[in-house]
């Protein structure tokens, strides 16, 4: 049996009385590039946090490669091959760019909590870190403090840390937020490059990016998935236009 | 039985006193995210200022003036000290308040020396309010209970009936809502810090004559106050109240009932060693309740943390 990369079954999440996620069912296949879109406050980030273990579901289950991971801690889920980025840049500000990426590699390369090896003497670790720095075009920023990078570079570093561990499911939370058109193009190319042969789940506001990148799209409105389909069909769907475009228009009007 | 009632009242006095400190500390913590390590130092300042004022103008003037001075000092320290350190993050803030506590203790010793100062209850309250079967209860403690409850009611009124109070209350459960205070957040912070420290000062004024006014009084009570806050749950006012009363009673009862471990062990069927001073368990056998009384709050804290890390009433696990 080849289980899906991610499967959500009747997932619910409430904060107090507010039901943020309601009965979400979703299957994302291995190697698929899946996008989640929806108006502000639809619960996209909450859904992300439920899958990655930051929140525990109120009811329902999350499966990763067929294994139930509901209620597991983020680090346990990460060890099962899922890695995520954050909407608000979430890097180690007081460490160098090189060290940021290296931190992303440590667990996957089996170092665990070791305090008997000198980290600078690990050739393979250094080589792979530099390789990733090349990939994300930050090799020339190697020894700078991450906090001192320009915003777009920090976003690239965020992706670099996320993919460093070689997880086969990559989840990106608004990777292009706050970027200019040209920066966005670069980062989309980067995403395409680094997630080859991997499962990608992405939340994004920029529709151009979504329709360019995704194999399938789920539309989340008020905590419910109203449609999951190919980009062409989602674009054509009446329900989506009413629910989603309707609200965005309203938002723009207000 | 009568001893029991007196202990209930005595424990109430201690508990309410703890709560006067805990409530201010909780308010400051919930609004500003700073656990003010020097909070008990303001309590000590209240007592010393009131003592100094009482030498010239009597107890009642000190009761009014000392907390005001302490509150103004607190506001100024927030404005010119804490706000400066705030930019470096929470840990330096905590270190700053810790340094402040050390400094205040040194200044108190600088002006008033290392010995206890003779700060006494006013003559008007220096009589026995009532006696229960030979156990007397001083009028001054009745006064303390009324003061503490009065303060509690005022606090309750402000928190539930005024606009600023409701915002503060919202901030207790949802720290983000502090932003809703509008453009004068710094002003409100200074005010909350000032009022919180003034409450601590008031507690010092009324506690000084009973608990003793000496340079170590801040750290003695301060550590217990933090235990209350952690046991009750960081940021929970009700938790602080329950924990304060609980610890007040635990301490009072432990001090007055001379239960001996020896009796308990014998009752459990253990044999008392013939030569006590040769037994490896001599410390256990000779233990008495008044002896362990002072450590019970800390023990309680450790147990609560192991069983329920967020505290009895805590929702936030920060």
């Amino acid at each position, binding site marked *: 049996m080849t289980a899906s990369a991610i499967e959500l079954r009747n997932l619910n999440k409430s904060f107090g009385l507010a039901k943020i996620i309601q009965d979400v069912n979703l299957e994302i296949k291995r190697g698929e590039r899946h996008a989640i879109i929806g108006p502000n406050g639809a619960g996209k980030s909450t859904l992300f946090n439920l899958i*990655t273990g930051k929140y525990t579901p109120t009811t329902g289950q999350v499966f990763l490669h067929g294994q139930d991971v509901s209620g597991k801690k*983020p*680090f346990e889920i*990460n060890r099962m091959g899922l*890695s*995520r980025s*954050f909407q608000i840049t979430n*890097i*180690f*500000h*007081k*460490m160098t760019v090189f060290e940021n990426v290296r*931190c992303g590699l*440590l*667990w996957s390369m089996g170092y*665990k*909590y*070791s*305090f008997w090896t000198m*980290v*600078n003497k*690990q050739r393979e670790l250094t080589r792979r870190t*530099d390789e990733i720095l090349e990939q994300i075009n930050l090799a020339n920023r190697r020894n700078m403090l991450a906090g001192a990078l320009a915003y777009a570079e920090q976003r690239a570093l965020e992706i670099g*840390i996320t993919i460093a*561990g070689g997880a086969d499911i990559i989840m990106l939370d608004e990777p292009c937020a706050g970027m200019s058109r040209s920066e966005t193009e670069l980062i989309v190319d980067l995403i395409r490059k680094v997630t080859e042969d991997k499962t990608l789940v992405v939340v994004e506001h920029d529709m151009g990016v979504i329709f360019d990148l995704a194999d399938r799209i789920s539309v989340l409105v008020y905590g419910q998935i109203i449609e999951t389909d190919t980009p062409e069909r989602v674009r054509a769907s009446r329900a989506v236009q009413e629910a989603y475009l309707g609200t965005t228009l309203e938002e723009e009007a207000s | 039985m009568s001893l029991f009632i007196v202990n209930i009242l005595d424990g109430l006095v201690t508990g309410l006193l703890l709560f006067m400190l805990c409530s201010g500390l909780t308010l400051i913590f919930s609004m500003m995210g700073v*656990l003010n390590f020097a909070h008990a130092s303001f309590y000590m300042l209240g007592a010393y200022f009131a003592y100094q004022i009482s030498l010239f103008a009597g107890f009642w003037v000190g009761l009014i003036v000392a907390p005001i001075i302490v509150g103004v000092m607190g506001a100024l320290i927030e404005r010119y*000290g804490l706000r*400066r350190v705030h930019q*470096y993050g*929470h*840990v*330096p803030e*905590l*270190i*700053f308040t*810790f*340094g*402040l506590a*050390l*400094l205040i203790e*040194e200044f108190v*010793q*600088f002006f008033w*020396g290392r010995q206890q100062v003779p700060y006494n209850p006013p003559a008007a309250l220096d009589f026995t309010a009532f006696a229960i079967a030979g156990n007397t209860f001083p009028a001054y403690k009745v006064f303390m209970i009324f003061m503490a409850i009065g303060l509690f009611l005022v606090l309750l009124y402000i928190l539930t009936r005024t606009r600023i109070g409701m915002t503060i209350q919202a901030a207790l459960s949802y720290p983000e809502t502090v932003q809703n205070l509008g453009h004068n957040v710094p002003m409100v912070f200074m005010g909350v810090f000032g009022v919180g420290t003034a409450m601590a000062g008031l507690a010092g004024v009324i506690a000084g004559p009973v608990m003793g006014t000496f340079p170590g009084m801040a*750290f003695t009570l301060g*550590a217990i106050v*933090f235990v209350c806050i*952690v046991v009750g749950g960081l940021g929970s006012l009700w938790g602080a109240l329950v924990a304060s009363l609980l610890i007040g009673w635990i301490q009072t009862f432990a001090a007055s009932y001379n239960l001996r471990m020896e009796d308990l062990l014998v009752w459990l069927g253990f044999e008392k060693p013939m030569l006590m001073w040769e037994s*490896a368990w001599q*410390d256990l056998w000779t*233990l008495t309740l008044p002896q362990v009384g002072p*450590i019970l709050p*800390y*023990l309680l*804290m*450790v147990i609560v*943390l192991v069983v329920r*890390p967020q505290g009895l009433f805590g929702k936030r*696990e*920060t």
Partner: protein
Amino acid sequence: MSTPSTNPLTAGTSRLIPLNHALPWIIAAVALVLLPVIFDSRSALTIMNQMAITIVFALAYNMLLGQGGMLSFGHAVYMGLGGFFSMHVMNWMSVDPWLPLPVLPIFGGLFGLLFAFLIGWFSTRRAGTTFAMISLGVGQLVASLSIIIVIFFGGEEGISGNRTEMLPFFGLDFGQQIEVYYLTAVWLLIAALGMFLYSRTPMGRLANAVRDNEERAEFLGYSQRNVRWISFCASGFFAGIAGALFAINFEILTEENLNLATSGTILLVTFLGGVGFFIGPIIGAIVFTLLQTVLSLHTDIWALYVGILFVATVMFFPFGLTGLLALHVLPWKLGKIGYLAKPYAKMIVPALALVLSAAAVLEILFHVRHAGRGENEMTIYWTTFDSHSPLPLILGIVVAVVSAYALAKLAPGLKAAWDEATTMREAGQ
């Protein structure tokens, strides 16, 4: 300034110890050997031993505060417990000596580690304020327990021992203070090197990562709690070594080795030196020990001065003395350190005047309040006068105000020179 080891092309080359890495350690070792030759008095040895112990403890403390971002108000517990246990081992050994004194610190370290392991289990679940409060509570608990559990802690009097009764070590029985000095110095080097190397392991780097951003670390496969717990254990181990060295040096331990005052002092020492640098606690321990020794000889209110210094450090130099020194690295590298010499030279007189006059005012006030009846005469700065007459006080205040004003006037000049010295424009290369 690029060194072979920071060059990406040669990083990880197999030379075991690059010379430029070993050099500071060789210098330190040589200095430790030579110091007692230069300062050979009994009191100098005592101070140096005290310093060495404080350095080990402060470095251990900074594994938590600087590297792990955990603020502890109760770290004396682990040093103290290590010390108490070592003292018991010392006493057992005097009955049946089968181990020499130099191995004692290992026992102290292991005992510190054991308790850090037990207490860390629940105290490292959260960082920040909660961790700080728990450390305070546990510290108070252990300090109070030490009075009750007489069999281990010796009650109010504490426990004492005799270091010379253990197995002789190559003929040495450590009766001489100089022997104890070299024992302490060797352990200082071992412990400091151990802690330095630890900071270069994956665990050491992860402690930094969790300090900076615990959430991110969780999403990279690391449990923030485990990272903190392991750091805490390592810190407890080295604190325990410091405790054993204390036991060896002073041959007595009391409740004072466990209480809040000791825990607070180590925070002060570490912060004063600078938490962001490995060398920070070392500088802090040296400066603090000297300051304490000198001040306590000359004034009754030395603790007040230390308190003022501490609060001023937190407010104005949160990176400590080392941070202050590190600020000058850039002008140095740019070859423009000379730009700062003149403004510094101008400020040194008013700065000294301010410190000395403010201290004089405090001393006079203190004398007025605390001197015995009729003892109006006091002496400071080799001058004797009547402390109750207003003139000296007024003079002190005037000098303080004037020098503060002069400093304020000179500040813009320093700022301009500083900007000049830290900009690249006219740099050599």
